[in-house]
């Protein structure tokens, strides 16, 4: 599902964010990306949905060479990838339902599909009763659930999460991780960058550790360390 071959990403000023990274992630896997701040976790994720392009190497996502993909095809790639932000990025003037519907509306889904899929996904994340609330009326954990609903409403093949529990307390974080685990069990590949030791240790899933842009560990059923 995801394959990186000798990928190097260098930012201006010769900052190497990722160095000669080679890794494969199969369909349906849940992978934790760990490592200190500045180790290249976010860059790894941003390369997968073509927010960044590598200087060297090849990246394949859902069968497509992401690095050479023409720019007009990028939106179609992104429709196969859900993205969850640390700071949720919900639109404050839209309700919970509208925030989720927005993701379908802007890719041209018909209204009857939107009307059907939005309540279903809000039910999955446990927010069906809060469909008409605004983001400021929700707790941080609930806002992140809305963010997950928005990322998953189009049933993407891959879900990328960049520090999704970074702004949440431990108990809420466990709830969010549990939700991502349930989504993963539907066959969706999940790649999650995190600093949250307890979550990684409790889940015992594949762990990829980055240090200064280099993959220093790739361990099945690993722990944070």
């Amino acid at each position: 599902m995801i394959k990186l071959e000798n990928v190097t990403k260098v930012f201006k000023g010769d900052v190497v964010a990722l160095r000669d990274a080679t890794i494969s992630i199969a369909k349906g896997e849940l992978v934790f990306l760990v490592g200190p701040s500045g180790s290249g976790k976010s860059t790894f994720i941003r390369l997968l949905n073509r927010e960044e392009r590598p200087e060297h190497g090849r990246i394949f996502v859902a069968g497509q060479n992401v690095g050479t993909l023409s720019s007009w095809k990028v939106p179609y790639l992104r429709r196969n990838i859900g993205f969850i932000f640390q700071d949720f990025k919900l639109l404050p003037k839209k309700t919970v339902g509208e925030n989720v519907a927005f993701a379908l509306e802007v890719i041209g889904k018909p209204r009857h599909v939107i009307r059907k899929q939005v309540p279903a996904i809000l039910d999955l994340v446990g927010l069906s009763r809060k469909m008409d609330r605004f983001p400021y009326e929700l707790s941080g954990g609930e806002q992140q659930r809305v963010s997950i609903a928005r990322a998953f409403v189009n049933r993407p093949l891959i879900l990328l999460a960049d520090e999704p529990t970074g702004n949440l307390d431990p108990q809420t974080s466990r709830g969010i991780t549990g939700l991502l685990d349930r989504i993963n069990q539907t066959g969706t590949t999940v790649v999650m960058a995190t600093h949250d030791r307890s979550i990684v240790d409790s889940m015992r899933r594949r762990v990829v550790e980055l240090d200064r842009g280099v993959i220093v560990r790739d361990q099945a059923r690993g722990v944070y360390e």
Partner: protein
Amino acid sequence: MLSTRYALRETGQNLRRNYQLAVATVVTVGVSLAMFGGFVLFQTAADSATKRWEGGIEFVVWMNAEATPEQDDRIRERLEESSAISRFEYVDQAETFEEFKELFADTPELLESVTAEMLPPSYRVVPADPDADVVEEIGRQFRGQPGVRTVVFAGEAIRGIQDLSDRAGRVLFIGSIVLLGASALLILNTLAIAISNRRQEIEIMRVVGASRWFVRIPFMLEGLIQGVLGALVAVGCNSLLRTYVIDRFSEADALQLLAGFQVDNAALLRTNLVVLGIGVVVSVAGSAAAVTLHLDP
């Protein structure tokens, strides 16, 4: 596929959020295009008024419609013999009727009541020396001759109006070009603010896979609407200009020298279409620049 409903809703929201700037943009586009339209209309009117005075013609000897061929020949001979006359042109009744038809194309009831036989033929005279006093002197010699109805001079009045029209035209033209540039910049800035206001929405749209045009079109539409509304303001101004300024010029002229200082419906329609076209081009250019500069590729 871009949903029309979505595009219109987003465009409407943008215009409402930013309405003060949108109004300023519409007014600026309107004023600049009205100035451009004014330039075109004044030129059209002046061209129409001075048509019979083209090519150095300084005076016209109008014959009576019922002048005899002998009377006609006598005037022709005098014109041919005069060394003070460089050349002249005879416009017969049929040709005069053609001019009349062009001039009064908008008033068919007048055309119906007039026939070629009712209109006077004329000699349009180019003197060797265009000095006003000399021209006056030569022209006067034909006044009161048998068969001559009147002698009309191009005179300083029409030249003055022509100069004024040229000068006003230049000011309007330069002013309109400067303001059109300002309009495009204003549209660019209005859209830059709209884009900035919606930065987060745009980021989400990109992440979930909205196509580039899906993101762009509501902004382009916003710019286009401002341009078209501005052009409609200018179209209204053009019609008022014709009714309350240009037509008054023509009506106020007792000497008939300015008869024909007018703009017919076809010319007004042409001008309005050009104004609308420029409004569309300027707004699309401003919008395209805004989305190219401010929406990331």
